[in-house]
């Protein structure tokens, strides 16, 4: 699935990395616990989260995540956006809540990190 598909499915807005809409995203995970993200998420995956602090982008940077989508209409501050731009990590924001966001992507065939096989 491409980032632009995720943008469409979630009715999301891209707030950083607008040039990366063609990026492939093969799996996703929803979490507000960065410790879990650091421990269990795989490279290249999409993180859905309700947290918008810059450490979310740092976490994504360390774990080589493909993109971050903030749920329930949350908008990151400029510092978070700047950091994401400098690390080439796309940021999206969707008005949908966490459960619906995950559900819609899963229904369209985007697997979770734990079940993804190459």
């Amino acid at each position, binding site marked *: 699935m491409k980032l632009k598909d995720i943008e469409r499915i979630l009715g999301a807005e891209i707030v950083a990395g*607008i*040039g*990366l809409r*063609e*990026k492939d995203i093969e799996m996703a995970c929803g979490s*507000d*616990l*960065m*410790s*879990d*993200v*650091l*421990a269990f998420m795989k*490279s290249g995956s999409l993180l859905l*989260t309700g*947290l918008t*602090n*810059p*450490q*979310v982008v*740092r*976490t994504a*940077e*360390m*774990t*080589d995540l493909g993109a971050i989508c903030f749920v329930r209409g949350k908008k990151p501050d400029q510092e978070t956006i700047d950091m994401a731009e400098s690390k*080439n990590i796309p940021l999206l924001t969707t008005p949908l809540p966490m459960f619906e966001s995950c559900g819609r992507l899963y229904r369209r065939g985007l697997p979770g990190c734990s079940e993804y096989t190459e």
Partner: protein
Amino acid sequence: MAADGNIGKIQELIYEIRVCDVMKGNVITVSPQTPMSELRRILREKRISGTPVVEGDKLVGIISLDDFIRWMAEREQDCPIGEKMTRNVQTLYSDEPLILAVNRFDQLGFGRFAVLDRKSERLLGIITKGDIVEGLLRKLEIDYYKEENQRHEEQHFFEDILADKSVLFFRYDVMGHDFKRAGESASRLKATLRRLGLNPQIVRRVAIATYEAEMNLIIYTDGGRIRVRVQPHEIAVRVEDSGPGIPDVDKVMRPGYSTAPEWVRELGFGAGMGLNNILKCSDKMDLRSALGKGTRLSICISIEEGAKSEAN
């Protein structure tokens, strides 16, 4: 030669990219009944020089600043846009390659084309020459970024060093309680290791472990140092602080055990998983602490193991 390469690349891209990839969606439209006197406000407020005229779902014409100026110049009475618009609009389908759009702009000299869905004939967006240039530049930028990354990955720093023993050493100083800058050291280390051309999976493990350790320095101590020793066969990270120390080392290794303050948890950290995650990322780990004196965490990540798994 580089310039030639770029032109070749653009020529390839305009066959590859489709109209829908560069067009602007959410188009501002007017109805044929909208009076001409309204048009000026719409064009000015939306900062556009023309707009499609739509009746129901169907595109019936296009009206531009030129049409508006002509109407003004002729000092005619106010009338609906429908009377002054260009009918027989030249359109493009969203799935057509960009080269077709480029040729049409060239042949017809128009400023914009309406873009329709091939099946439903519904208006999807609008495309201008500016959109094409912007779309191409964006695509070139992405490709450049990919190439740049690959170039880094293809470097093998250690293979170029001729010595019986080679060691690289990096030190990062971490301030305590400075959550804003948390992760800067791990980030700089990660970029450095990538530049050395090390296996991305190895670099990722080192980065995660170092980030977790850096977080611990920031949350629980007044600061400390991260020392990294890179050798062709392994990366060793040593994280030291000067207090307050851990009362029970076995207890902090238990998953879920945490003494993190509430504000740290609110930011998504401090769930009592950090040290376990460090253990998971490393091939060897050692944690020693003396109350009131400080803590020393040493981890080792073997490069050869990772290189092997990549070869398999």
